[in-house]
C-alpha cells in the first residue's frame, strides 16, 4: 500500500472528490495562491482554478456563512479554518445556522458542509492559538464532529465528510500533518460513529482521539514490557459516538483511562466516563480516570506548555491508579 503523509492524504481526498463532483469547492484564507498555511491545499488552485479554490479575505463569519448558503443551494463546500482557534469568529454561523437549519426549517433544507483545519496545541502558540474544540462543537445537536489520527482514516473520513448531507466539523491533528502511514489509493470511505481498536489488550482500556492516540500506543508499549496488556481505542468520531466499542472493551478489561488534550470540565472524557458508569457499572474494578489539559489558558514557555498537556508520564500514573499499582 502506498505511504503518504497525513497532509497528502487529506489533499488527495479533496482533490479526488473535486475531480468526481463539480459541486465541491474549497474556501479559506490563503488556501489558493499561497498554497495553504499548512500546505494542505497546495497546488489545488492550479488544478481547479479560483472559482473552486476560493481565497477569502480574513473574515471567518462571512465566508463560513457564505459556505452555508452555498450548501443550502446544493453545493458541497469545504471550508478551511486556518486553525480552529479562528472558528470562534464564525461560531454564530456554525452553531446558529449550520447546526440548526435543518431543524428550524422543518426539514426543508440541509447543509452538506465540511469545516476542516488543525485542532489542538503543542507547538508553543500560546493562549489564543491553542484550543481543542471537540467538546465545544460536540455539544451541539445538528453537527457531526470527527477527529481522525491516521493518514488512512483522514482520507477515508474526509471523503465521508464531503459526501455527508450534514455539516461536519473535521478536526485535524495539526501536529501530525507530516506523519506518514499507509493510505489506499482510490475511493474508500470510513464511516462516522465507529471507533477503531488501535491495539488489543485485556488488562486496561485506554481511550483517546486525535494525536493522543499515538501517545496511548507508546504508553501501551511501555505497559507491555511490564506485562500489562492495554487496549487502545481511537474514538475517531465524537458525534456520532460509538458507545458499544468502549463498553465491550471495558467489560473485558474492567478498567478505563480516557485521555484528551482539552480541559476536563464538561469534556469528551467526562462524557465517556459517564457512559461507562451507565452501561458497565457492574464491570468496573476502579473509577474511570480522566487525563486532561491543565485548567489554564495555554501557556507559551515550552516547559509550561508541556506541563499543561497530558504526558506519557501522566497517563502511566493514571493507569497505575486504575490497576491499584504503586506509582514509581
Amino acid at each position, binding site marked *: 500500500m502506498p505511504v503518504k503523509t497525513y497532509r497528502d492524504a487529506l489533499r488527495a481526498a479533496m482533490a479526488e472528490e473535486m475531480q468526481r463532483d463539480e459541486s465541491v*469547492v474549497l474556501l479559506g484564507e490563503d488556501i489558493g495562491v499561497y498554497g495553504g498555511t499548512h500546505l494542505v491545499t497546495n497546488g489545488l488552485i492550479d488544478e481547479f482554478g479560483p*472559482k473552486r479554490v476560493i481565497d*477569502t*479575505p480574513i*473574515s471567518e*463569519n*462571512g*465566508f*463560513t*456563512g*457564505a*459556505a*452555508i*448558503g*452555498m*450548501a*443550502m*443551494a*446544493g*453545493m458541497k*463546500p469545504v471550508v478551511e479554518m486556518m486553525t480552529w482557534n479562528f472558528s470562534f469568529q464564525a461560531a*454564530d*454561523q456554525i452553531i*446558529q*445556522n449550520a447546526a440548526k*437549519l*435543518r*431543524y*428550524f*426549517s*422543518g*426539514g*426543508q*433544507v*440541509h447543509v*452538506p458542509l465540511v469545516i476542516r483545519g488543525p485542532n489542538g496545541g503543542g507547538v508553543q502558540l500560546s493562549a489564543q492559538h491553542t484550543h481543542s474544540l471537540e467538546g465545544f462543537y460536540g455539544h451541539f*445537536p*445538528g453537527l*457531526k464532529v470527527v477527529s481522525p489520527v491516521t493518514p488512512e482514516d483522514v482520507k477515508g473520513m474526509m471523503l465521508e465528510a464531503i459526501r*455527508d*448531507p*450534514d455539516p461536519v466539523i473535521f478536526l485535524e491533528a495539526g501536529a501530525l500533518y507530516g506523519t506518514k502511514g499507509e493510505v489506499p489509493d482510490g475511493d474508500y470511505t470510513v464511516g462516522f460513529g465507529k471507533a477503531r481498536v488501535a491495539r488489543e489488550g485485556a488488562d486496561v482500556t485506554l481511550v483517546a482521539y486525535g494525536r493522543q492516540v499515538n501517545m496511548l500506543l507508546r504508553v501501551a508499549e511501555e505497559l507491555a514490557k511490564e506485562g500489562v496488556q492495554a487496549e487502545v481505542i481511537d474514538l475517531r468520531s465524537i*458525534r*456520532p*459516538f460509538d*458507545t458499544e466499542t468502549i463498553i465491550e472493551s471495558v467489560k473485558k478489561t474492567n478498567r478505563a483511562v480516557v485521555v484528551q488534550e482539552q480541559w476536563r470540565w464538561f469534556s469528551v472524557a467526562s*462524557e465517556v466516563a*459517564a*457512559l461507562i458508569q*451507565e452501561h458497565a457499572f457492574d464491570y468496573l474494578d476502579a473509577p474511570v480516570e480522566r487525563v486532561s489539559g491543565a485548567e489554564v489558558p495555554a501557556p507559551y514557555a515550552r516547559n509550561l506548555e508541556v506541563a499543561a498537556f497530558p504526558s506519557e508520564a501522566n497517563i502511566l500514573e493514571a493507569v497505575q491508579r486504575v490497576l491499584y499499582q504503586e506509582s514509581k
Partner: protein
Amino acid sequence: MLDSEALLELYRKMVGIRLFEDAAQRGFRKGRIGGYLHMYIGQEAVATGFLESYQEGDRIITAYRDHAHALLLGATPREVMAELYGKGTGLVKGKGGSMHLFDVDNGFYGGYGIVGGHIPLGVGMAYSAAYNKENSIVQLYLGDGAIHNGAFHEAANLAGLWGKDGLNPCLFVLENNQYGMGTSVERATANTNLGSKFDSYGIEWEQVDGMDIEAVINAARKASERVRESGKPYAIEALTYRIVPHGAADFLEKYRSKEEVKKWRERDPIGLLEKKLTDAGVEDETLEKIRAEAKEKADDAVTFAEESPEPDLSELTTDVYASDMHIADAG
C-alpha cells in the same frame, strides 16, 4: 404607472398581509401564539413590491420579520398561521415559529432570528447561483439594525469581491424602518446615510420610497434585471416605517413619540395605495370587498390553526440530521 387592475391586485396582497398580521396579533394577545411575534405592519409595500420581480428559481432570504415574504411567495395563510400557533400543520411543522418560516419549493430560504446572521448565507447562495449558471438571483432582505453587524460587513465585502467576476447576483434590500428594535438610526451610527455603507464594498445602491408601492416595483424591476444580467450585487435602501411596536410585546414604545408614529401612519403604504385607487376612480365598494375577503381568509387561517393538532411528539427528534440520524440523549 400601473393600471387600476394591477394596483388592485397589489392592494389585495398588501391588505391580505395586513389583516393576516392583525389576526396573528390577536392570537398572540390571547396567548395562543408563543415566543416572539414581529409584525411587518407599515412595511408591506417593500416585500410586495420587490417580490413582483421574483422569477422562478430565485432565492429569497430575510431575518425574523418574515410573515409577508412567506405569504407573498405562495405559502398559504393557513400554514403560516398554523406555524405561529405551533401546530403540526405549520409551514415548518411547528419547529420554527414566527421567526423561522421556510418555503423552499417557492424560493423562500427563511426566516432567521439572529440579526445579521443570515446575510452571509444569501451571499453564498448568490455565488452558487452564478457558479451553476442558473440565471437566478438572490433577494437578500436586511433591516437597518443589521447593517451595524459584523456579519453584514464581511458578507457585503465578499459580495462586492465575488461580483467583480460576475459571481454574485445578490440584490440587497435594506429595509430601513428607522429603528433597530428601539434604537433609532441616529442613536446607532455616526454615518446615518445607511446605503452609503455599501460604497465601501464596491456595491452600487439607490434609495426608494418604501411606502410607495409603484416606486418600489419600478426600482426593484430595474435592479433585479441589472443583477441578473451582470452577476454583480446591487442594493436598494427602502425607506419605510414599522407603524406597530417592534414585537407584539413592545407596548410602551418609550423610544419614539406618538406624534412621530402618527405622522408615519399618514404615509401608511396601504392608505397611499387606497388613495391612488380612488383617484383612479375605483369605487370604495370594490376596496371594501377586497378587505372583507382578506378578513375572511385571515379568520379561516385562525380557525385552521386553532383546530389543527399539535405536532406529533415523534417529531421532536426528526430533522436534526438529513440522514435522520438521531443521537440519543445518552450520547
